[in-house]
């Protein structure tokens, strides 16, 4: 993989909007052409070169292109938007809309990432070592189609409404999630290794959510279906036992919500509604 590095060279006061900082807009361009790519700093048009020191050499095939962004770019929005290949590595904290509408390729963030990570994602892979904001893999406001494919892996915690209006793909949170994971979810898989604050799978109509840690309460419109020995994410199998709830009844949904049995004693009441002996 040939690498082009972008090292942030100034403290950003206002947000930067750089949807063209992605492999598709950089492949086949010379370093000077890359430096002259237009981006927005607040309401001013500037060039990439004005806030990044750009090094490396021209790469003509997108599969070989690896973009490395060094420094705190938490105020730089839409990195990797619409990318269809190649790799982006961010050493530091990333901004909002990272990998927005991404088709393919991969993004790795060593620090935290902002909200709307991988929103409306179609394919590819995003990995965040730290935490993320809200609306991971979600849809745009008013649209009823979120992430359709691809894979998002977050090692830290995630915010609210991850996988909102999700239609496919997989989101794995190794930490905890706040409220409403899988909100209005239609399909796809969400795995939360630790705890969920509340309201998992609210108004979901399909798809699968697995909560490995603790959740204080299940929404009243969900119904217990059975206790399963294990649950599957794509090919990987996780040993249970899990309570399996089906919902959201309010949307006549067939979403499947797996909640680990141990540690969730508050949910024991649902076992009375199971006809099979436990």
């Amino acid at each position, binding site marked *: 993989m040939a690498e082009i590095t972008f090292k942030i060279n100034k403290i950003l*006061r*206002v*947000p930067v*909007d750089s949807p063209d900082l992605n492999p598709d807009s950089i492949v086949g361009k010379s370093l000077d052409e890359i430096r002259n790519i237009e981006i*927005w*700093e*607040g*309401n*001013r048009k500037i060039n990439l070169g004005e806030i990044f020191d750009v090094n490396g050499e021209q790469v003509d095939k997108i599969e070989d292109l690896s973009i490395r962004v060094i420094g705190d770019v938490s*105020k730089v*929005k839409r990195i990797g938007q619409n990318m269809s290949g190649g790799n982006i590595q961010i050493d530091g904290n990333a901004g*909002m*809309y990272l990998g927005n509408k991404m088709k393919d390729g991969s993004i790795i963030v060593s620090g935290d990432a902002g*909200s*709307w990570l991988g929103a409306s994602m179609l394919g590819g892979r995003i990995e965040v070592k730290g935490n993320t904001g*809200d*609306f991971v893999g979600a849809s*745009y*406001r*008013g649209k*009823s189609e979120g992430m359709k494919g691809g894979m998002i892996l977050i090692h830290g915690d995630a915010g609210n*409404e991850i996988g909102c209006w999700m239609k496919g793909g997989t989101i794995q949170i190794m930490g905890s999630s706040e*409220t*409403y994971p899988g*909100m*209005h979810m239609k399909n796809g898989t969400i795995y939360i290794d630790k705890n969920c604050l*509340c*309201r998992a799978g*609210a*108004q979901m109509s399909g798809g699968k959510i697995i909560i490995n840690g603790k959740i204080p*309460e299940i*929404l*009243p*419109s969900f*119904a*217990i279906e059975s206790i399963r020995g294990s649950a599957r994410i794509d090919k990987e199998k996780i040993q249970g036992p899990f309570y399996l709830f089906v919902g*959201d*009844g*309010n949307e006549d949904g067939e979403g499947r919500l797996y909640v680990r049995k141990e540690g969730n004693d508050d949910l024991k*009441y*649902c076992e009375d*509604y199971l006809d099979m002996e436990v």
Partner: protein
Amino acid sequence: MSSKIFQDIICTVCGCCCDNLEIEIKDGNISRAKNACAMSLGKLMNFNKERNEFPMVRNGDKLSKASLSEAIDKAANILADSKYPILYGWSLTSCEAIELGVELADCIGGVMDNTTGTCHGPGIIGIQDVGESTCTLGEVKHRADLIIYWGANPVHAHPNHMMRYSALSKGRFRATRKDRNVITVDVRMTDTAKISDSFIQIEPNKDYELLSAITATVKDLELEQDKVAGVPLEEIENLADIMVNCEFGIIFFGLGITMSLGKSRNIDMALSLVRELNKRTKFLIMPMRGHFNVTGANQVTAWQTGYPFAVDLSKGFPLYNPGDTSAVDILMRDECDAALVVASDPISNFPNQAARNLAKIPLITIDPHVTLTTLCSEVVIPSAHVGIETEGSIYRMDGVVLEARKFIEPPNGIVSDVEILQNLLNRVKKISK
């Protein structure tokens, strides 16, 4: 000095926009105001108190007197130089001023946001996912036999609401109070609950769960919990029955569910419940908008830019995403480098850290009163009170448009928001040519 009486004056305090005030003017002051509630009287009898008498510009650490053109010149330069300015407030001024505000934001490339973000913004986000079934207040007055106040306390926040538009009003098909069933759902027994027919006490931050349970019951699903949000199951079933069997029901929701845990999704669920109920009977929902023209701020911003609030015009086209382009979030991420606040006092209502970030950047405030925001500002320009000293179009909470009228001359040297903003816009256009 002779006294003069003005009829059918429109009140410019809360979202009710009562339009039957009768004002008596004596020696240039309001001596009596018939049909005005306590909050309205608070404004009508004291609008002259604690006013900014003249424009002020800060040099060093003190705000000192300046001429109108000096203040506008300084403000214009701040805005023209700014790389990411916020234009905030707008809910306590006229639509004509808001139209100029959007044009100014479009011209300088700033973020146009109004107080909806910290009021019923979550409600609008919910509507954008589910839609809403609503009406004008007269439909409630004429037809409603079931009125539910959810997380709203009109006795305190909209004192004339029940008398003019809902529970205590006389409608064509609902002549007396007995024809109406009034239910209040809140975390505490509010004064509104005390005059309702029944009160449902809900645990704080559990609105979504209760709404979800009621919707499930309306859909005849079997609930597996005997208590939801602290409300026993048969009380939920009873409420669901009342809702399904009414002829015309309405939910008025307040900040109780937009400001607590779940925010926009609480309203998303409430809208879904109402949509579900429309399969069985006639059911509507309406937000209790707080300020007299916050609805107008949404409408004007929406017809000019396509979006009701939190509109980022810095890239030459409108961008909307509350959470990214909304005032509190931008301030918490410390992303803006200048601000214009019109007819609002964010420094005394925003979370403290957001207020600090707002106070540390060049801040221009246009407001009749001395407020915490004006005291922290770089430039202060006093403006006339809409609906008292200047006229203007305002939108009631249900979207009905009224034209607030002028019946007292403003103090000399004090001009309207519209005139100030027009000057400011012209000056900015000259600078950025």
